[in-house]
């Protein structure tokens, strides 16, 4: 390759990376720094932040508990069933989030196949509650965790797990004592990614949970509504959310990557 062509490619690639990082820089430049704190600490915004924190932490926990063992099981099984399960698990990733939200609503709604009996027998209704926010977030972010963590488990030495099994380890013990410690870096990164996804989730929650301030309105929904009413506040809030999301990824990733 001639030096000039290599340079073109280099610049294109660097430009691409800069391009991607632009939102961060752009928002910093446009931030109304002086009035930002006032906007972010106003009552409705604080309420949205609290809803976001609660729901995203809860969904990160649910996703971890369900997703990590599932990812491990998938990584250690072959054949048609595993392929089928894998393709089903990643399907939410391929669904447009609003469609995912509608789908959840039709399943868990008052007349849905699960929501109907739930309401009738226990008087329990999920849509437009904080539970619905969590469900939307879990639905949307689970595939990201499963994919990231499965490939990490796949790269682990399955021989160690075989050795553990011959020594009498149950599947649970193989998972907890051998597989998990081997993949803790990737598991940490996967959790961080899923958490960030949950924090930024919008489409599925707005259709399934609605945007009720103080109840189901999360930070992204609050930003979406503030754009037309209080533009500066929406900018400040976006900035805060971005710092948290990127910070989360950076912190969890680096800490666990280094020790593993």
């Amino acid at each position: 390759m001639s030096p000039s062509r290599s340079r073109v490619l280099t610049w294109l690639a660097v430009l691409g990376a800069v391009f991607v990082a632009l939102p961060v820089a752009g928002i910093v430049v446009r931030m109304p720094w002086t009035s930002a704190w006032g906007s972010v600490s106003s009552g409705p915004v604080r309420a949205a932040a609290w809803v976001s924190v609660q729901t995203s932490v809860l969904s990160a926990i649910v996703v971890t508990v369900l997703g990590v063992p599932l990812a491990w099981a998938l990584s250690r099984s072959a054949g048609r069933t595993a392929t089928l399960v894998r393709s089903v698990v990643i399907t939410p990733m391929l669904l447009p989030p609003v469609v995912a939200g509608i789908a959840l609503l039709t399943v868990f709604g008052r007349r849905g196949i699960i929501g109907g009996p739930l309401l009738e027998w226990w008087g329990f209704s999920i849509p437009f509650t904080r539970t619905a926010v969590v469900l939307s977030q879990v639905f949307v972010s689970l595939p990201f965790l499963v994919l990231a963590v499965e490939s990490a488990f796949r790269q682990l030495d399955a021989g160690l797990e075989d050795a553990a099994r011959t020594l009498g380890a149950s599947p649970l013990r193989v998972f907890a004592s051998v597989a998990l410690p081997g993949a803790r870096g990737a598991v940490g990164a996967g959790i961080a990614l899923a958490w960030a996804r949950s924090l930024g989730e919008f489409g599925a929650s707005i259709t399934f949970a609605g945007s009720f301030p103080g109840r189901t309105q999360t930070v992204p929904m609050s930003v979406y509504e503030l754009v037309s009413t209080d533009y500066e506040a929406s900018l400040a809030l976006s900035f805060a959310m971005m710092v948290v999301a990127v910070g989360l990824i950076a912190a969890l990733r680096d800490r666990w990557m280094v020790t593993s």
Partner: protein
Amino acid sequence: MDGDELTLSVHGSIGRGSFAREVSLDVVAGVPVGLVGPNGSGKSTLLHTVAGLERMRSGSVVLDGTVVDDGSTFLEPGERRCVVMFQDLRLFPDMSVERNVEFGPRCHGAPRAEARDRAVAALDAVGAAHLASRMPGTLSGGEKQRVALARALVTNPRVILLDEPFAAVDSDSRPALRELLAAALSAPGLHAVVVSHDPEDLRGLASVTVSFA
């Protein structure tokens, strides 16, 4: 009948694809069997099948009169009391030597204190008590081999399978290790299979040698 009772027998077809083959093997307790064959002859497949890491394609594995694998019955590896000393040893890299050896007893439900006592005793028996707090990554080949042996024996196995036990050991450490292994394999009631590509390795370890080609 007592002879049959204390026999490990594998009859039928094992392996998949290019590793598929027929085997017929009987191992009497207290009489270690050596298997010699070139690489790729299916020795590892056989060990995996006996240990329960792979299923028989047809036929059965019977241990001391109990079916452990015959197509309908299949005992999980941990339920067979059959341990393997793998060629690459497979010590758990995140656990100390003592934790590695404790692992088996813990799996079988021993309380922590008992597991630790047994681990210490097992390490002592192979002359590796001083390594207890080390991490596997810091050990030499011969030391790792001793730890792996301790980890296998501490579970009081009915079957022990050794895959190329001298592969990672330098020639100076071999005589001591051979002595240790010979003593371990002659334990009463224990079925032992030693696999190697080199018949010389089996000298003094195996009472019967089978060619596996």
